[in-house]
């Protein structure tokens, strides 16, 4: 372990980087991890990045890191930072990332494992053929130039209005699938061009579509509210804003690097470049970022529509009869303006979640009424060989993490190291022997995304559950995976 980052143990799941670690840190760092997970966290530069985020003007309380934290660029992946807007708090495109509103949605079915196990290969083949995936994949859902701006303003509602879903889906999507304040005028022509033809596409890398089965229940009351049972088949979709979001991040990261001197902002990494939320640059980025967020919600809505159609073809029943209703859709790369209690005072904050999920506790009005008693559903995908989880947010998360939780397992191994550690043939055979069918556009992606490249999601979820910032509802295991 490097000894230059002093970590103070608060309890078994909380560790502090003191403000004194680096001159310029405005707040301490707070890391949620077990001692065992810290061993891997120490191996890369993520903790240094937690300290760097603490330099952001206006940051309140802590620079936070979830247990799936790993080395990113600027912010760590798994980082949360909130800035006080009324005290010159900043917004940083690097605190959101290139894949704006990368996120995940979980769809239930009324199918049981026994009804699917003999059809899983057909189902995965059908999903692979009907849901465009892979780099440069073009979507089947074509959008006219005039409609592009409607997507940016209406998000998932645009998809529903065009027949790709229902009002019910919108109610079960963070921000109802469209964050207000999107401003298409703040989006470059290049971003439009880069995103064109990618609506309804999954993308590549760690993006996936997975058929899963619930193998463990933890909270029977929450399961009853959500209509979930042991052995029930689920579908998880992980995708983002594709090239459209990448270009918006690039456009504004560049502007903010150029503007650091204007606002006399000193950050130790240019990828943390930022501007006050209330500045012209900050407002412009927020307007553009919200367009990308809405584009991503429209995209995941379209992907779910294509998924429902694929199930209809394989099982010969309508998606309604198959009970394919959306549980929830969450963003895990986003900046949101939210009101939170900071040391007893309600404040307007800009909450950056970079590889972190909103996890509002029971009673919050931002949660759909149907879930308000149990808390906001929080979807935690794992790797393709182990588990994924459904959690709900807690009051403790509201008090400690601005209502935030982890977003996945978190990488452990670089892509090149992972690719060297196994071959696609061996890995696919191993997964098949566990009853997991994988179809991927690229064999390279398969080895880069091998389960061994990730932390054990079970260990990550143990930390958030034991720390009280997320409550386990149920666990799923994969049956079949479509990778980009």
């Amino acid at each position, binding site marked *: 372990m490097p000894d230059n980052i002093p970590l103070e143990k608060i309890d078994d799941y909380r560790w502090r980087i003191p403000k004194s670690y680096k001159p310029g840190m405005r707040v301490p760092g707070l890391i949620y991890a077990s001692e065992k997970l810290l061993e891997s966290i120490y191996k890369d530069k993520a903790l240094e990045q937690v300290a760097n985020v603490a330099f952001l003007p206006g940051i309140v309380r802590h620079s936070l890191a979830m247990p799936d934290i790993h080395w990113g660029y600027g912010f760590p992946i798994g980082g949360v930072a909130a800035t006080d807007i009324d005290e010159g708090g900043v917004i940083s495109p690097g605190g959101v990332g290139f894949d704006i509103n990368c996120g995940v949605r979980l769809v239930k079915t009324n199918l049981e494992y026994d009804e699917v196990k003999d059809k899983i290969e057909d189902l995965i083949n059908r999903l692979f053929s009907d849901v465009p995936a892979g780099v440069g994949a073009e979507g089947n859902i074509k959008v006219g130039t005039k409609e592009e701006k409607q997507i940016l303003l209406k998000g998932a509602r645009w998809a529903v209005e065009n027949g790709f879903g229902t009002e019910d889906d919108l109610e079960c999507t963070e921000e109802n699938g469209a964050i207000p304040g999107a401003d298409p005028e703040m989006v470059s022509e290049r971003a439009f061009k*880069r995103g064109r033809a990618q609506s309804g596409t999954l993308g590549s890398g760690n993006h996936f579509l997975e058929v899963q089965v619930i193998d463990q229940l933890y909270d029977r009351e929450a399961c009853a509210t959500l209509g979930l049972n042991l052995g029930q088949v689920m579908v998880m979709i992980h995708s983002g804003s594709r*090239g459209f979001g990448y270009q918006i*991040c690039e456009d504004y990261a560049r502007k903010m690097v150029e503007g650091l001197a204007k606002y006399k902002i000193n950050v130790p990494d240019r990828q943390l470049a930022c501007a006050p939320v209330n500045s012209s640059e900050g407002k412009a980025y927020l307007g553009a970022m919200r367009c990308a967020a809405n584009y991503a919600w429209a995209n995941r809505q379209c992907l779910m529509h294509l998924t429902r159609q694929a199930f209809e073809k394989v099982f010969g029943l309508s998606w309604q009869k198959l009970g394919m209703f959306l549980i929830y859709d969450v963003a895990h790369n986003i900046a949101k303006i939210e009101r939170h209690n900071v040391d007893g005072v309600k404040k307007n904050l800009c909450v950056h979640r970079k590889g972190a999920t909103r996890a509002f506790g029971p009673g919050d009005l931002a949660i759909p009424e149907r879930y308000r008693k149990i808390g906001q559903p929080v979807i935690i995908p794992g790797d393709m060989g182990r588990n994924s989880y459904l959690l709900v947010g807690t009051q403790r998360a509201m008090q400690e993490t601005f209502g935030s939780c982890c977003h996945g397992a978190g990488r452990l191994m*670089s892509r*090149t190291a992972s690719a060297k550690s196994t071959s696609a043939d061996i890995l696919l055979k191993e997964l098949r022997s566990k009853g997991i069918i994988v179809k991927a556009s690229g064999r390279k992606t398969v080895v880069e995304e091998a389960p061994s490249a990730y932390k054990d999601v079970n260990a990550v979820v143990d930390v958030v559950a034991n720390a009280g910032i997320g409550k386990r509802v149920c666990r799923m295991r994969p049956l079949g995976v479509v990778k980009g």
Partner: protein
Amino acid sequence: MAHFLTCLKNPMKNYQVLEHTADIGIRVKSLSLAGLFKNAGLALTELSAEKQKNQYPEKHKIVIMQKADNVEELFVNWLNELLSVSAAEALIFADIKINQINEQFVDAIAIGTDSRNYKTNVEIKAATYHQLKVQKTGFYWQAEVIFDV
């Protein structure tokens, strides 16, 4: 130094991959700033795409002009412009001609063909400023950059 000599002897491998937990980094070297920018630009193609056919042989020449306050930001702007144009125009660049370059300005022509001629292995979203280094050391230029993939 050994790597640099390897690069000089084997122009097909003009970069070195740097380990990063989630993303990919590269180190590039060249005797000239023009060579550095060209090598880094071509590394983008080599990292992400594999030519499989020449069904769409028409060559497209795209003018890439970028400016910045310093050579590091110019380097990131250059790579991001190549990525952006490549994605927006669905082209893969197999050759680059640098017309004019200094530490604040680059004027080049990127020459590519339809991306459908290639199998794309990795989607590079962008070049980042994180741990970015572009410097002249002794008689050669060296750059390190991390890509979001």
